[in-house]
């Protein structure tokens, strides 16, 4: 048991050290998942203890950037939960259409799958040209990948099925060029996309938006940090703006539950009240 106790202490010290040195704030992330990821990193870094890992990342910024890849979870897919995107297309788009110009914030965009999905949907609905998308994440490597818009062909096959179920109107292959085992997505999709480094834990609101999409990000936060994020989304959204969450995320138990109403409940689409 004492080994485990040491590990708890070392984990807290590591997270504090990362915050003090690099300003990345994982202090209010869900503990169980952070612990698993740090343990996974220990094996990859070949460090016997979390203290050893701490010494390494404290003195070597490059090692920290490597560790950051373990601490963030780049699990995503295009048109993930197709019925969610179908609901955006059918229920939300008709209302977005009433705005002369639209701003959308995709918070925690990871490697860009949600961004390209949203851009494709908006293009098919004729709205992409008058939309600005802010795609933010804390992980610079993920943002770099998102900017490139290159995804493995193996995954794109699954995305194609999602796209069709999500009400896609064309052949999915119209949006990318296949090269070897990769699909290079049409760069015009990201003409109006601004990719930026932004932390829901430490940064503030940067723009007024009509829709915020933050999916499968908040599950990694504790309630306190979830509430901080909800506060940012609330402040960013214009009157009657939309907030869309992941399929297992909810506003119901947060401090902001009475500031939003359910718009399409099973799809976790909310509207600022």
């Amino acid at each position: 048991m004492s080994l485990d106790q040491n590990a708890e202490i070392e984990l807290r010290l590591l997270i504090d050290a990362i915050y003090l040195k690099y300003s990345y704030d994982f202090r209010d992330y869900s503990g169980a998942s952070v612990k698993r990821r740090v343990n996974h990193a220990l094996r990859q870094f070949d460090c016997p203890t979390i203290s050893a890992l701490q010494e390494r990342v404290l003195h070597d910024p490059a090692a920290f950037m490597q560790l950051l890849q373990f601490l963030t979870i780049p699990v995503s897919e295009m048109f993930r939960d197709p019925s969610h995107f179908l609901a955006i297309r059918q229920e939300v788009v008709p209302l977005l259409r009433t705005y002369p110009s639209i701003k959308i914030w995709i918070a925690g965009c990871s490697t860009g799958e949600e961004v390209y999905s949203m851009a494709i949907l908006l293009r098919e609905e004729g709205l992409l040209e008058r939309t600005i998308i802010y795609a933010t994440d804390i992980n610079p490597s993920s943002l770099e990948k998102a900017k490139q818009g290159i995804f493995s062909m193996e995954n794109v096959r699954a995305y194609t099925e999602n796209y069709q179920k999500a009400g896609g109107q064309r052949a999915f292959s119209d949006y990318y060029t296949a090269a070897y085992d990769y699909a290079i997505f049409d760069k015009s999709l990201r003409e109006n996309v601004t990719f930026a480094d932004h932390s829901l834990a430490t940064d503030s609101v940067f723009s007024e938006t009509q829709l915020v999409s933050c999916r499968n990000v908040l599950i990694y936060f504790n309630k306190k940090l979830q509430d901080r994020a909800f506060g940012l989304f609330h402040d960013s959204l214009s009157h009657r703006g939309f907030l869309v969450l992941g399929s297992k995320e909810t506003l119901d138990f947060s401090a902001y539950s009475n500031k939003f109403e359910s718009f399409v409940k099973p799809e976790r689409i909310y509207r600022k009240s």
Partner: protein
Amino acid sequence: MKTRFDATETSDAPLPRAAAIVVGASAGGVEALLKIFSTIKVGFRLPILTVLHIPDERRSHLASVFQARLPIPVKEADDKEDIVPGTLYFAGPGYHLSVESDLSLSLSQEDRVFHSRPSIDILFDSAADAYGKRLVGILLTGANNDGAHGLSRIKRAGGFTIVQDPAQAQARTMPEAALALHEPDYLLPLNDIGQLLAELERIAC
């Protein structure tokens, strides 16, 4: 390691005072779970957290299937909800389920473990951290190795472990993998696991 359980016999090794039960199962798991949970009576006070490997579809009917047959609340686990005693939780499809140190639940989408998300190992590891010696882990039938490591982790953290007898399991790989890693407190057929579950609950609170 004991290979039978009879609540009417007094035992030299007393049962622990548990605070929670975690259960893992894969192939053949629905039947096995229905059998071990059949001893649960109204007023059962321990929380039970269950990972049954299921296809990656968006909605699962597990909770409603078990709710129709059990006299305690059954639900799919939600992110950040507090664990309520006397409730049976199932991990939903596509997300790992963890227990946090404040005894709330959290979901995550890290890589699959043995091709599975939810993973039994992830539930068992995190519950061992949160409950320590007050945890009971049960591993049942299954055709892969998920859960074996997590169950041995529960034992190392001072908890109590039960493995379904592989000879009587619909798929023996999973209980055999568990036995290869550690010696559980009990190796039992399903009927005995059900009786033991009831006895653990009786002495728990």
